[in-house]
């Protein structure tokens, strides 16, 4: 029997008990204890609680150390057990995190979110989310219509071309962009750097910057793109920077800044850091491995 079956059996049993012979007081008490959500309007969001604060060992031998270990990692350690199995809470949390990761990959960025930023909206050569996931090669190209629009509407030859793409986590873009972009733009502005038309590429991959670079010939390009989510974090954003972005450029010409999220590098700080990094790239006329080895 799988864990899922176990949980279902337990829940069914509890529900059955609720409707049997117990007195009203018992019922109320039990209800409160096992199914707190039934009384409130909304179910608590299991993914809200930080792993580090989920202290489930009932009588830890060394409480201070237990708390410290929990704080040190987002991994599911010290989660206690029910017999040989995980606690219901822990199991459900695992499922919820998995669901959040899937949501991040499969969901779309809301249209009104994109409108807030005045993006020129483009699409890769992928026609669906499914194709986006199964055909990375197409995610690096633009479809014909987008290419035409890019040529017609985007300002070419900027110092910094900003590109945003959903990549593998729409959640990452929605959560981080509103606080990253103003910091980045403020930084670039105070350095006197010219940014082009901000672009959004639906179903994009990192190397879509190569096509855009080929077309617009900016000095540098920066793509902000959702990272493949894990069970620990579904909202992590990466930034890839390249000097002289163009078709056929090598992967090692890109500089990457990853782990931009609430518990990693916070979005505003990342924005300011990226601005200074772009200044460095422009000054060195190099990015990626070449920049790192200067």
């Amino acid at each position: 029997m799988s864990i899922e079956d176990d949980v279902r059996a337990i829940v069914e049993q509890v529900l059955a008990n609720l409707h049997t012979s117990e007195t009203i007081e018992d019922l109320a008490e039990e209800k409160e204890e096992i199914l707190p959500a039934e009384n409130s309007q909304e179910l608590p969001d299991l993914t809200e609680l930080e792993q580090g604060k989920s202290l489930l060992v009932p009588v830890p031998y060394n409480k201070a150390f237990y708390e410290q270990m929990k704080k040190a990692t987002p991994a599911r350690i010290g989660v206690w057990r029910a017999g040989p199995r995980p606690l219901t809470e822990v199991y459900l949390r695992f499922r919820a995190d998995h669901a959040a990761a899937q949501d991040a990959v499969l969901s779309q960025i809301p249209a009104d979110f994109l409108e807030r930023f005045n993006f020129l909206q483009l699409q890769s050569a992928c026609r669906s989310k499914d194709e986006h996931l199964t055909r990375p090669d197409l995610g690096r190209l633009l479809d014909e219509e987008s290419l035409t629009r890019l040529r017609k509407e985007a300002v070419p030859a900027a110092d910094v071309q900003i590109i945003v793409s959903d990549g593998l986590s729409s959640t990452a873009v929605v959560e981080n962009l509103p606080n990253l972009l103003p910091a980045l733009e403020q930084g670039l502005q105070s350095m006197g750097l010219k940014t082009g038309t901000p672009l959004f590429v639906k179903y994009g991959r990192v190397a879509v910057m190569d096509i855009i670079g080929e077309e617009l010939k900016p000095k540098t390009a920066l793509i902000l793109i959702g990272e493949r989510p894990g069970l620990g974090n579904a909202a992590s954003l990466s930034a890839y920077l390249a000097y002289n972005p163009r078709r056929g450029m090598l992967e090692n010409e890109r500089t990457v800044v990853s782990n931009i999220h609430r518990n990693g590098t916070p979005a505003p700080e990342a924005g300011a850091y990226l601005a200074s990094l772009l200044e460095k790239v422009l000054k060195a006329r190099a990015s990626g491995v070449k920049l790192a080895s200067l």
Partner: protein
Amino acid sequence: MRTIRGFEETVLSVGIDIGTTTTQLVISSLTIVNIAPGACVPRMEITEKKILYKSQIYFTPLKEHNLIDPVTLLKIVEKEYQNAGVKSEEIGTGAVIITGEAAKKENARSITEALAGFAGDFVVATAGPNLESVLAGKGSGSAAFSKAKHMVIVNIDVGGGTSNFGIFKEGNCIDTACLNIGGHLVELEKNGDRITYLAEPARLVLRELGLTLNPGDRVDLSSLTAITDLMAGSLLELLGVKSFSKLSQELLMTPRLRLDYPVENVVFSGGVADFIYSDYVPVSVAEVSRYGDVGPLLGYSLRQNFLKHALKLHPPAETIRATVIGAGAHSVSLSGSTISIAESALPLRNIPVVSPFPVGIPLEVKEAAELVQAAIERLTSDGSTEQLALAILEVKTDSFQAINELAEAIARGARGYLLKEKPLVIVCKKDCAKVLGQCLHTKVPQKAQIVCIDQVEVTEGDFLDIGKPLFAGTIVPVVVKTLVFSGLA
């Protein structure tokens, strides 16, 4: 000396400890490494602290009993640099600490500052019984021991003039105190049995015992043992093992220990510790007085008295050199790697810290600006300081708006301060210095020098030294001279 090898940088650090009895120097190399995974924003840490050179142990040069001899002291440092094969230009950082009775000498302050200037570019002058307690506990290995064993460790550094208590939990110092008790408070004729000098604290102990002894008098072992036993008892009283006496109150140089933590595991460091951990048994005054003081006997008394009270004594990694190693290798910490600094303003020394928002940043920018202004005036109004650092403890680091508003509040509140063209230092606990500095630059006059650093924890009343940047301008070395400790550390 700094050498850069790929992602690693080495800085030479000096520690100089001018104590009641002895003066020493150590040179260590600190290795700074980017420990963040390749693709992440860099995170620098000191990963290795290697002691390269230990000086011989000198008697602290004194002129009479109330002045330190600066000429001899400078010669010692010069000679030891020569022996170590280093030049002061090669020293990247470090600290000079003047401790115990030596800190009471009339010229203590001017000497440490002059010496710090001589010793190297970013060598800071420090003093104070609390700081001494912290550095001794780090240098003795107690801080690391408390972290490795997950135990609260009471480190007691018993030197010539003072006993410095540092309580360590998970590597952090959570409480300190200092008693005016040490091995050199009663000075004896070397290998003889005559008293040559009695420091004031020793006179208090004698008064308590009802003994009348004066310099020049001969003394027997039982009287001396009575003195050191009473001294040892005072240490136990401070730990709450025995009830606190009036004498201990008089000998106390700081507030008492809070004792809201378990007192079970004790580590002794300092010169006297060598006699606590050995099986030394005193036989005669002539033999006790081999260093010209009662140090060995005090060690013996401490061992006897502490074991009697079932305290566990753990050996330290360092005894007499604990404080100097603490000053040399453990006084410096590093800022976060995304910071915003006016390089020309550095290094900055002895900057007092003020905390404008002790209970959080108000929502209204106007109100926050008023708090900043009030905090600045609190420190500058009496003319005692012209420069200061603002401590920002809590800010919503994931909100650009919150950070931008904070910058606005600081720019408004510090308008008058910035007119004087003094650098404004801002120290954030959390990772937001780069963006906060960037926001500030859009709101202050172009000439204003802003030094905005993060991942350094300071509170009101601390003093701060900030060195020139390392790692191609990404981080700065910082020395925080904390005077107060919270139980939450």
